[in-house]
């Protein structure tokens, strides 16, 4: 690492909760997505688990709302280097959703898909064991469209592009395949503490 002449930085109060290379966005919540922001009404929203399952299962908006609620409180980390602390998201745990299907013994990965066509790949173990949610409120308010509303995936221990906005389902797979950003140079797993930003990191 080469020292930059004259650079001291402003990390006097650096928060130990910040992964390497990240900064605290404070009250801002930057919006980044690669497509036009869609308008998906709750009347048309569905969530489906298919792929390597005995029987695919779909939920309507009313059906998913009727499931037991689960909350995440903590930080989120975007690959573009901002992090946000003390967020509260409410929705349903992916564990609860997976209880409704019978996974094939070969199941090892999922492709999270969006109503826009966006997709992002994750190891099954990153969306099970209390590590992932489908959420529709943030800090007590409905998730806005720009942040993925009516509902998005939330996988807060990985970079936030894994938390697919406008989520439409999980396709269960035996082997890994790249999603949208992963085909475009981003890392297949995206652990912020290992700075897995780009393919090969």
């Amino acid at each position: 690492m080469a020292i930059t002449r004259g650079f001291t930085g402003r990390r006097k109060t650096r928060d130990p909760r910040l992964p390497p290379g990240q900064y605290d966005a404070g009250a801002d919540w930057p919006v980044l997505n690669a497509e036009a922001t869609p308008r998906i009404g709750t009347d048309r929203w569905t969530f489906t688990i298919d792929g390597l399952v005995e029987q695919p299962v779909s939920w309507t908006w009313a059906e998913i709302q009727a499931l037991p609620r689960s909350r995440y409180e903590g930080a989120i980390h975007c690959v573009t280097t901002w992090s946000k602390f003390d967020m509260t998201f409410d929705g349903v745990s992916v564990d609860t959703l997976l209880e409704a299907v019978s996974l094939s013994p070969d199941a090892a990965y999922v492709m999270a898909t969006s109503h826009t066509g966006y997709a992002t790949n994750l190891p099954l173990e990153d969306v099970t064991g209390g590590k992932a949610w489908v959420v529709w409120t943030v800090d007590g308010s409905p998730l806005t469209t720009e942040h993925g509303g009516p509902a998005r995936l939330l996988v807060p221990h990985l970079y936030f592009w894994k938390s697919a906005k406008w989520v439409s389902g999980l396709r269960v797979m035996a082997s890994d395949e790249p999603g949208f950003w992963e085909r475009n140079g981003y890392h297949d797993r995206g652990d912020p503490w290992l700075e897995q930003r780009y393919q090969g990191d």
Partner: protein
Amino acid sequence: MVAWQKAMVVEVRRETPNAKTFRLKLPAVSEHVAGQYYVLRLTAEDGYTAQRDYSVASVPGSDLVDLTVELLPGGEVSEFLHEVVEPGDELEVRGPIGGWFAWRGDSPALGVAGGSGVVPLMSMLRLSRLRDPSLFRLVVSARRPADLYYGAEVVGPQTTVVYTRQTPPSWPRPVGRLTADDLAPTLTPTQTVYVCGTPPFCDHATGLLESLGVSTDRIRVERFGPS
């Protein structure tokens, strides 16, 4: 991994009161695709680092790359670059990165830029002028003439400039935000549309494009946030 490279600052050029272009000499020719960006890293003596993404404004195929940096109030990296960095300094970069908001210069495309969002689209405009100018159109929105990046170079038969606050003398279009009428004459049925700017600008522009019948699968968006 995409390796960090040492780059030498060979020129610093002021584009607007709030934007400077840093011309970097890389150890090797940059094979970026127009629209891609580099990550720039600053390192303090105690090992503390700060890094940000900056779009490339120059064309591929040279060991010189132009990164244009908007000065953001309180921006740890942009303020350092604007206030301290000068020719002869060494900076670390890695890239190029991004395979989606990228144009290879061989298919019809339209760029729609707000403010600093013109940077990656400038790479596309410059590339098209080397390849086939008929393939690329650019609509760029700026607050005032002084805020237009790349000044005289950006204007020309491929470019429509929209001013939102103040125009040059005897400018035919009144001030005002981008409208469907500004975009309509630039549209063709097959072009890919690259929209870049702040999130509100991108949402406004994509809304106009959709109202003009451009299907969302032909629209690619890069939102510049405070990051």
